[in-house]
């Protein structure tokens, strides 16, 4: 057992946890959190692959590292888009349920007058 294997098992556990959260958490924001957990588990798996590929004087294979960096950026973009969707959905729901649709619209319009 070495560090790479250890973190590999850790990443397996994180993937399972993230999937579980994605399935059972009903709140959209919690799903997004679960997605981030799942994603970090997958990135960690890349990290394990990189560490095992240490060679040529490097502590880890640079290719998987680069992939993870790209992956993290993409995953942030996804989070930002999903969060924006959640917020927009909540706002529209509030307008409908509270029956204040007209009022809040007027307020928003008032912002720029």
């Amino acid at each position, binding site marked *: 057992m070495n560090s790479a294997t250890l973190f590999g098992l850790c990443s397996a556990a994180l993937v399972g946890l993230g999937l579980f959260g*994605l*399935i059972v958490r*009903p709140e959209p924001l919690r799903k997004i959190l679960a997605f981030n957990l799942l994603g970090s588990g997958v990135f960690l798996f890349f990290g394990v692959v990189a560490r095992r590929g240490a060679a040529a004087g490097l502590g880890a294979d640079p290719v998987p590292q680069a992939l993870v960096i790209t992956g993290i950026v993409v995953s942030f973009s996804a989070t930002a888009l999903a969060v924006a969707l959640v917020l927009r959905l909540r706002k529209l729901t509030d307008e409908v349920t509270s029956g204040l649709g007209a009022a809040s619209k007027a307020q928003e319009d008032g912002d720029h007058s």
Partner: protein
Amino acid sequence: MMTPMIASTLLASALAVPLAMMALALSRRGTGHTANLLPLAPLPALLAAMMVPEDTSVVLPQALLGLRITIDKPGAMLLGAASLLWSAGGIWARAQVRSQSQERPFTVWWLTTLAGSLGVFLAADMIGFYLFFTLVSLAAYGLIVHDDTPAAHRAAGLYVALALLGEAFLLMGFVLLAAGAPGSSLLISDAVAALPTSSWRDTTLLLIVLGFGLKMGLVPFHVWMPLTYSAAPIPAAAVLSGAAVKAGVIGLIRFLPFEAALPGWGEVLASVGFFSAFYGVGIGITQANPAAVLAYSSVSQMGFLAAVIGMGLAAGNRAAPLAAAFYAVHHVLVKGGLFLALGAASARLPRNAWLVMVPAAVLALGLAGLPLTGGQIAKLVAKGPLGDGLAGTLAQLSAVGTTLLVLHFLRRLSASAAQDSTEPPSSLLVGAWLTVAVASLVLPWMFLSTIGAASWNTVLSSEELWSASWPMLAGGLLAAVLWPWHTRLPRIPEGDVLAIGQRCLPSVFSLGATFERVDSYLRQWPIASMCVVLLVLLLTLTLAVP
């Protein structure tokens, strides 16, 4: 004598002209009375049937799928009769299209059905045949719904559903047929020649018989006929029952391997055919609507034809296709003529009713084989494949039944003629109708020598005349006996077994509801996302299975 060039041009134009006219009617340019095209469209086909020498072929360019059209004896006879009926029907249709807005769509549907109906008689390869068969089957939808009544929509819906089912059977059958044939030839003759030795022979035959049987209205696939023919406008019913139905007949003629005797399959087909023949009579005499009576008569007649074909197949009788085609030609003209008679009767003043009733009676009794009419010859020719055994006896019994049925039809016809008193039809319409009627009497006499089944002398021999007469007398007697009861016969709804089917319909719909429940359950987030995980595991497991 025609040069091959002219012959093939004429042959191609038989199909090209209706299609071109359809395109014209479809385009914005084709304003004005597009319905004027209807009587003209089948004329090239009529000319081709009369003049193009047998076995002339045309191969279309590759861009048009390289289709091949050929005219042979059965094809030519049917093509001639059908195009004559289409033309006469076109004259009636032209007068019947009610409003400007409906004229164009009706014309388009009519011409499309027409092209398909004539095309099946000429197509020599499977793709072309399937294409034209689809045209004639599906485009008929537009003719049936033309009156835009709820009954028309119901009938058309049922019709399309069954037609698509038939298409599916045929498609499957053709695929198997092509697969069983050696080489890459798609010619029907090549594929059928290889069928008896194909390893999928039985399945192929089953699919082909189901597909064409559905089009011919063999029991239990007959339910669409009564509904459709009573809902469609009369000219449409005339061409559909006369000409379009023969797509199924020509299908059986072309696609069954008569070279090889297949007793099992032949007898099955013949049994179904005879059953349909008697079933049509039995239900038909309970019908009040004359159009429905004619529809059940079609069920019966097509059943008889299937029996002829089946017996031919059982014996490996190579003359059977021609005999069946001959019988079909007679039916094209008679059934078309009877529907047009219905149209004439509905408009004729009661005072002049005999002007309609007498030709109609001759036509109708012709179906039962009235001596000296084309019907007698048709029955005589059909005897060949049927033989003298059980099948021959059944055939004569069916003539008794047919007599009974057509007498019932004539009674209903006169009853309906007495009720209506709209404007009488123009002499052009009456002329068109009478042309068809006369053709039904005369054409079989003319074709008799070409098919060489019997001579005029045989037909006119006293033995044959008696053999044709006694079923009619028996039928007449039966009708007289049943006369007092005819009002007490149960009134079976049009489409008989359909009524039972409709009671089962809710359960079919509840199946749809079950699917809906399953779908909405699976579309919940936790379930669907769990399915993702489950599928990963399942796929891994199945991948590990060698």
